[in-house]
């Protein structure tokens, strides 16, 4: 799983994120999905102000969360945007994943909120995990199985 490309564009004083993510599920995740276990997909997007010596403070943090599941009755893969509540269904997994991997014009931050003199970096990371399981299963899922897949963090400079 990797971030193929990501960039920001500014339009009407708002920064938008565009990204292309290649979601590739491993066998565990595929098995889980086929058996009706829902998978969570989370997109972490940070805007951080660069500082020379000390840590970089986060100016904005965006969490875009999706849920991917297999609907046995309709034999379709259902993707729910947990932020907006939108639901999309697809007849095959590849389509669903490609739909998930296409981020177009996701509003990130208002440009006036940023300091003109500072440098800002944007980073994005995608994490795919089994849905939050009840009670002890959740704890054990951390140690058994390799459902959790995370991409490398992809960073770029916020250009105006």
């Amino acid at each position: 799983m990797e971030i193929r490309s990501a960039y920001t564009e500014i339009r009407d004083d708002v920064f938008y994120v565009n990204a292309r993510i290649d979601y590739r599920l491993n066998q565990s995740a595929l098995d889980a999905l086929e058996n009706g276990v829902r998978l969570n997909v989370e997109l972490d997007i940070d805007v951080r102000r660069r500082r020379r010596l000390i840590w970089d403070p986060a100016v904005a943090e965006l969490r875009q969360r999706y849920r991917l599941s297999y609907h046995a009755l309709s034999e379709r893969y259902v993707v729910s945007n947990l932020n907006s509540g939108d639901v999309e269904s697809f007849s095959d997994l590849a389509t669903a994943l490609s739909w998930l991997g296409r981020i177009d014009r996701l509003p990130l931050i208002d440009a006036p909120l940023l300091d003109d003199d500072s440098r800002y970096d944007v980073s994005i990371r995608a994490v795919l995990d089994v849905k939050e399981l009840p009670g002890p299963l959740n704890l054990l899922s951390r140690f058994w199985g390799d459902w959790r897949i995370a991409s490398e963090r992809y960073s770029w400079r916020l250009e105006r």
Partner: protein
Amino acid sequence: MKRAAAIGLGILGFSFWFGSMLLLGRATEGADEFGRLYGSLFLLNAIGVVTLIVLIAVNLVRLVRDYRSRMPGSRLKSRMVATFVILSVLPLVIVFYFSVQFLNRGIDSWFSVDVEKGLSDALNLSRATLEIQMRDYLSATEEMAVRLQEWIPVGLAGELARLQRQSGALELTVIGSNSRIVASISDREELDVIATPTEEILVQLAQGLSYVGLDPLANSGYQIRTAAMIPMVSPFSEQRMLLAIFPVSERLSSLADAVQHAYSDYGELSYLRRLLKYSLTLTLTLVLLLSLLTAVWGAFFFSRKLVAPIQNLIAGTRAVAQGDYDTQLPLPGNDDMGFLVRSFNEMTRRLSEARRQASASQATIENERAYLAIILGRLSTGVISLETDWRVRTANQAAGSILGFDLESGIGRPLLEIARESSLLEQFVDIARRHIMAGDSEWREQIVLKAEGGRRVLMCACSGLNSESGELAGYVMVFDDITALMQAQRDAAWGEVARRLAHEIKNPLTPIQLSAERMRRRLLDRIEEKDAQVVERATRTIVQQVEAMKEMVNAFSDYARAPDMDLIQIDLNHLVLEVADLYRAREIDVTIDLDLDSELGSVEIDPGRVRQILHNLIGNAIEALNHKKGGRLWVRTALETDGEIRLLSIVVEDNGPGFSLDAIEHIFDPYVTSKPKGTGLGLAIVKKLVEEHGGRVDAANRDEGGARMSIVMPVDDEARTALLRKEAHSTDYKGERA
């Protein structure tokens, strides 16, 4: 207060432990709010487990250390801990084993083939039902598309509305080329966005096929989406498609949803069952561990609580064994152990009390003993107590003084052994042993011992000491030195004899003498020469012998006579010189040497009596020398002190034959003499005169040969009084004088 706090803390800890275990169990069950707490609860319980392990380890180390150092009670504690642990751990482990087995089999039994097949069939049934409806809606959509081919955009909306009403579709949309929406009508109030054809639809339609699909809605329910190409009127007309969205009846939706959910949940659970087994086993293990460790720790705790009073008792017993009777143990409670501890405390209290009383009794006995020792010490009577084996048990100072041996240092030693060290004691012991060997434990006898300075007369009484059981436990011998008393009695008797002799004998002597003289005078001229010689010889003898008898009677008279003392201050040295000069003037063969102490000065004495003493002593000595060639005589005076008391000393020595040992005992008795001539009253008178001065006289032989007479008397009246007082209190002086 401390106990209440401990109980409170215990209840709190138990509640916390039990609560957390309950919550853990509840959290394991499902997806409610406890499910989210599972992680925290697990961590909390894990911390509990670690804490308990640490506590148990500490307790175990302590127990092992106590056991190795053989600390009292550690063995009992070890046994109790082992018993508790076995009793609590074994059932828990068995229950755990069967629980895990039951759990695994139970979970496996949920996921049977039959259930899976049933669910799958239900899903297929639902799908078939929906597919019938989908096919109907697809046909309807294709029909509507055909009907719309004639319609140009003008009036299309009206036709769409009519078709919608007829078909019961939720939304109808006509899409032109480039996905342009030509016309649309929708009853979907919840959405303000008109559905556009998805890529999937476009691909399907491009292949000349109509599209039908079942779309699950966000929350619940379904909608059926259809799409069909609107046939072109002419080859040049625009390609258009009709998109329709149909509702699925609520009843069917809910049934289908139920089946879908059941199928999905079952599938999920079936897929996760291994994890589920692990999680339940883990929870169970954690609860078991907590219970088990709590039980083990409880075993340590309660065994410590139970053993503590026993350890206290052991420590207390040791303390009592070492003589600490004041030991009081803390009360563990009102149970049997409390009763035992109370009894122990009562016992030590009584022991302590008994010891205090014993100490008091001992102190009383010690006081009595000391008091007795003081009395014995003050007694002038000698007291010796003996064990049956003749070991000296008690001996007072007077006994030592009388027998001339420090008997007090010989306490504990056999008397027969000590006796070898002193001849006086040996004689005494011989007499005593003779009685006791003869089985005579009660006896009384006046015994005479031969000493260097003369004989000692003791009045001795012995008595057997009987124990409480009546057995002979020893002897006590009480004796008094009665030498002086005997001497005094003898002196008194001799005085009486002398007085009577003087009186009875002197009276007829004068008539005898006178008769003899008259007989001589009358008869001498008248009888013949021959007879006259006889008469002359006879009468002369009578007169001479009567004269001698008179002298003797006068001497006795002098001895018996006791004129008043005439004490005056006089220079003793001068007196001695005077008397010595008298003898020197007689031209005798004896050299008289004087050694007079110039510090003596004037002393308070009766000069007449002292002159008599000097005459008697010097005269005796000169007679003893008996014209011996080189005969010498020494007279010494000196000032002596006995403590604070000032005494004068007169010593007369000669180098003559000295006293025979037999005579020395009776030298001061009247009518005892070693001389061919003499009345035998000289030394008796000396002794009488010295004693009248409050002094004493001793006779001894010089080591170099010859006799020594020593006189000691007080220098004045004050010293005389002090000496008398001292004599009354001192057994020493008495002993020595005797």
